[in-house]
């Protein structure tokens, strides 16, 4: 399926995707932002690390995401930090579609939960697909 403004409908949902939080990715993520967290912090991911598991190309690897889109806005609710080794599930839906200044905007909403069902993160990602 191609993720264009025309092809997606508000309320559309997709199969949940499952991941394991990788300790090495947390380490590299902290390196990228200059956060030398040590001790217990090595096990706990920075809040925005959850974004890795809350983007269309990751949740739906077979989806066709047209190149040239713009990530315009990003909002989060952080409920529980992700921890190394944790098994998590991401669900994704199309939350909103609108046009602004002649450009279509798509808002995806993601929920990330741990294996106990606890809500860890809600992400709302606003993108402007290419024309």
């Amino acid at each position: 399926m191609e993720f264009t403004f025309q092809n997606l409908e508000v309320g559309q949902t997709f199969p949940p995707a499952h991941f394991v939080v990788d300790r090495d990715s947390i380490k590299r993520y902290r390196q990228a932002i200059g956060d030398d967290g040590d001790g217990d912090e090595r096990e706990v991911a920075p809040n925005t690390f959850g974004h890795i598991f809350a983007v269309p190309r990751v949740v739906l690897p077979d989806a066709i995401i047209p190149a040239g889109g713009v990530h315009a806005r990003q909002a989060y609710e952080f409920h529980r930090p992700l921890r190394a080794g944790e098994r998590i599930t991401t669900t994704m839906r199309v939350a909103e579609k609108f046009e602004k200044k002649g450009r279509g905007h798509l808002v995806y909403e993601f929920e990330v939960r741990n294996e106990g069902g606890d809500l860890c993160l809600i992400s709302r990602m606003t993108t402007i697909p290419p024309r």
Partner: protein
Amino acid sequence: MPDQPYDHDPAPVSASLCVGEAIPPLQRVVTSDAIRTYADASGDHNPLHLDDAFAATTAYGGVIAHGMLTAAYVSFAMQRWLGAGWETESGMSVAFLKAVRPGDEITVTGRIQSREKDGRGVKITCSIDVVNQLGETVLAGTAWGHEVSS
């Protein structure tokens, strides 16, 4: 590893935060190394962020950093400031306004907009403004967390 010194001095939340007070700023030089490291950590290897030749053919005219790298700096600034008060029942909402390029020096700034009691304690909402070395705003929005008494 990014090839720059970083300021890791803790900046604990003060006992008497006031509306209008600035949050501790966070400065970073966005190196090519930091962008590559972020790409590896996130799995986002879009050539717009990594391939000079490809990026030169786009509307950006060259490589730009992932917007989420800049957003991650905002989160780190809030984490350093609020500590545990940033880890849960917190959030942020930001707009990406201008591309960040390798070598840019960016500063995360913010001011307390409101303090209000809620079920978890005192919720603090801040305006967020990330500026580059030219004083241009590259990201703007709000972030909120909680005061945690020490």
